[in-house]
């Protein structure tokens, strides 16, 4: 929990920094643990349930430890009409997990996001923030394979 304490001490003790604190901690730890919630509540002098309330309100925050790589399927309007439900199915089949889950090796997690803002390249997914566009099944599986072989950055 040293990292959490370090993060908190860099922020002013003003409640308006609570979301920022959660973001910085998630950046370091990958998710928000029970311990982190207690530390944050302590630091901002609010109850843990208030922090938990904020965590569950915003889709950005995760309570489950994510895999090494996070795949985000964009389901914005443009991607949706260009077939993002299929893209999601293909990934779910390939990884054997559903949206919001991490595969059994802890390698990939799958998320669905509202819009990555690259509508002209629809359908798109992002892996660890890198966007891959104009996907079809073959292209998608090739990208996943690249990650598995350690060939993609």
């Amino acid at each position, binding site marked *: 929990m040293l990292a959490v304490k370090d993060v908190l001490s860099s922020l002013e003790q*003003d*409640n*308006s*920094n*609570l*979301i*920022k604190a*959660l*973001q910085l901690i998630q950046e370091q730890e990958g998710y928000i643990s029970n311990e982190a919630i207690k530390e944050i509540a302590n630091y*901002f002098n609010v109850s843990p349930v208030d922090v938990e*309330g*904020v965590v569950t*309100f*915003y*889709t*950005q*925050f995760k309570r489950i430890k994510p895999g090494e790589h996070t795949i985000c399927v964009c*389901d*914005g*309007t*443009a991607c*949706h*009409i260009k*077939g993002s439900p*299929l893209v999601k*199915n*293909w990934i779910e*089949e390939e990884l054997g997990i559903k949206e919001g889950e991490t595969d059994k090796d802890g390698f990939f997690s799958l998320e669905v*996001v*509202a*819009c*990555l*803002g*690259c*509508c*002209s*390249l*629809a359908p*798109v997914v992002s892996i660890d*923030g890198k*966007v*891959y*566009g104009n996907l*079809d*099944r*073959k292209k998608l599986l090739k990208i996943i394979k690249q990650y598995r072989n350690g060939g993609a950055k």
Partner: protein
Amino acid sequence: MIKRIKVGTASCGIAAGAKDVLEFIKNNVTDIDIVEVGCIGHCYAEPLVEVETDDGESIIYRDVKPDKADLDKILSLSDEKRLKVRNERSSRELIMVTKLAGRISPVSIDEYKKNGGYEALAKALSMSPKDVVDEIKKSGLRGRGGGGFPTGLKWEFLSAKESERKIMICNADEGDPGAFMDRSLMESVPHQVLEGMLIGAYATGATDLFIYVRAEYPLAVRNLGIALEQIKNEGLNNLNGRVVDIKIKEGAGAFVCGEETAMIASLEGKRGNPRYRPPFPTDKGYKGYPTAINNVETFGNVPLIIKGGADRYASIGTEHSKGTKLFALAGDLKYPGLVEVPMGITIGEIVFEIGGADKDKVKAVQIGGPSGGCIPAKYFDTPIDYDSLKSLGAIMGSGGLIVISSDRCMVETARYFLEFTSRESCGKCTFCRIGTKRMLETLEKITGGKGSLEDVAFLEDIAGKVKNGSLCGLGQTAPNPVVSTLRFFRDEYEKHVVDKQCPALQCNALVDLYLNQDKCIKCKLCIKNCPVNAISDDFVIDCDICTRCNTCMEVCPVDAIKRVPKGGKSE
């Protein structure tokens, strides 16, 4: 001679491979200045590389690959691969707000200044704050975030308040799926947005400025942050002796936070629940201080108005909608991208002339995102302005414009938006929380082939209740996608519930996949690729096993497999 090379590295460009192109050029060209620029709006042709020559000429190359052949074309100023902006587009666009986007380095304050940047701020500082507010009022600028509230009026409310602290927030929480105007502006010309904010702070007496930006836009956050540092270093946030504080706050993924009272709650570090108005934020906002919230594009317009004068600005557009509007054009069309058009242009001009959509195939546009509606092709001569769109049951929204062709199902489109709003409902109001969920279930029933005419009537009834029973804009507008599709595409709903058919062949439960044996060349690619082994060795698809994933259709080299109405074996 080539003076410098610009590579477009906004999000769209990067997704298309612009970083690889940039790296390749940097590794192979050492004697020419290479800069990264933002977005020029021609997303269909990314990655884009622009060459500036000594005599001021500018040539843009499209679909550039990171290889020697393409680099040679660029360096020799070859005619090949040049981006030729079609006359249909250039004659209808009016580039004002995005004039510098993709032309200058987003993170160079010097370049922004060289191109007239911060002249508007200087001019504003030589005027009285009241005159600045009056100028904005006179220009007729209305909020570009969707609501269309007159910006000058909002500023007048804030400036009239007496308070030790006054807050001005830039709403950069562009959460509508299908919209990327604000992202593009922040990534490409962050200084222009900041200049608009500084002018606003001077005019209204705001002391604390926030930019509430989506965390999903990392490049926008980065570029704004760099620009902000530069402003502070040069003391540009010193407004005639009064230093204002500007902070960037990252949102955490909640669509409802685009609503102003929810955004204020979120900035205070709370759950983003909207609250009842009044008191309006200009009376009681962030931490109780008077607060004005304007959208990114609204701020982007401000420097133009101050610099060029309100009269000139107000000469563009229609009687009640002035200036230009950015649209994020996507969907079933040939040239998706970011376009800037004068208010009053027709939907058809945008879709067909600028977007190059197929006149025979387009059946509607979806405008305004989850709060907006679908407008059928027969109304495409409607001018784009706040009031005309409202009369058709849509809204201007922030500027997402999705073209829908005849092979898309309108019921499915409505279902998609309700899925979004039911997920994003904050849960405070019963009608929004439960009503959107019930609407979604009913739509799923219809697209799943189990709907009845009573379900359609139920949708109409509950839509009105959700609209009336919700506190904020999210709930009040959530039924719009259903209401507008019911209004214009009722026949599609009826086909689903009465005939159990999806005319667009999109709803999987109402569709079979059919393999035409006469066309089939027995290559077995479909059998090999089918993820659920639904295709027999004698090339018959078992529709009970088939998941309608379309993989076989994609791999088939002779197009022998087609989607057909359920139960129908022929085309």
